């Protein structure tokens, strides 16, 4: 698929999966989509390995936009991007946007074939500046 992919990273697998459900229902299957949540040990948290896996799953040559919830999700996502390394890393952006609204809006933009820059800009518009 040539559309930008969307990855949802929450501390809670329930939040991540629920957000992905909303994206699927509202946007459809035109966008590569993956989610992860939980610390990998049954608790709340985020996990670099799982995030790397989700990026692989949602990978698109057009790039991947990541939506996160709390601080640790952002830190771990940035770590995951760094560990994936170039050349792919330059096509992966962690968005500064509310996770649910950001994921839906970014996916909507992506489903129309927008570039990674446009998808991320759409998500960022939701953040209070």
């Amino acid at each position: 698929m040539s559309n930008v992919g969307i990855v949802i990273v929450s501390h809670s697998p329930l939040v991540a999966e629920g957000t992905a459900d909303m994206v699927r229902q509202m946007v459809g299957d035109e966008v590569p989509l993956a989610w992860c949540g939980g610390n990998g040990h049954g608790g709340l948290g985020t996990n670099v390995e799982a995030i790397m896996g989700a990026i692989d799953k949602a990978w698109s040559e057009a790039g991947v936009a990541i939506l996160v919830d709390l601080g640790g999700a952002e830190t771990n996502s940035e770590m995951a991007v760094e560990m994936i390394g170039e050349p792919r890393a330059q096509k992966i952006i962690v968005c500064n946007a509310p996770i649910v609204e950001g994921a839906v809006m970014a996916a909507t933009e992506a489903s129309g074939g927008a570039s990674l820059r446009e998808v991320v800009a759409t998500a960022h518009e939701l953040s209070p500046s």
Partner: protein
Amino acid sequence: MSAETMNKVELKALISATADTIAAHADELTTLDQAIGDGDHGLNMKRGFEAVRADADSFAAKPLPDALKAIGTKLVMTVGGASGPLFGTLFMALGKEISTEPDRADLATAFGKAIEAVAARGKSQVGQKTMLDVLQPVHEALLQDRTGPEITDAADRAAEATVPMKALRGRASFLGDRSIGHMDAGARSTALLVRAVAETIEGYA
């Protein structure tokens, strides 16, 4: 700590000493983290450093820079939470910056670069009630060629000094003024690691 090259120190001894101190203080770290964080720091750090200990032989077989990078990666993958990438970045960046047989000056330079990497990863700086508040004084002590016990004391005092600080980064920052009066768990674990490393190197000097 002497000016001897670090390669005289068995990496395995350092791994063992750091894992021992984290395990011995896991409950204390968790208690600190329960006060102003999410209460998983002790368990997370213990899981990570035990994972490093389990692979000590493979790390020890590598040149120092590669070993440190591999240890950092292991910590990223096993510690979890926000601490995983922060402590992982510290070791990964140290590995990237250090020479194969570093002297004291090389160590100090690489340590300074590693601190910058941690600050960038956490989008944080000194004075925000984080591990950086311990790393920075330790770096200064290294630059000033202080002894092991002096460096260890500086680290302990720096961790204590996070008590009256207001947290500006991480989960504790959600508490605002209520974060004041508690030691930062990451600062405490950093001081513990500094002590373990300094005492191990001292023992070899």
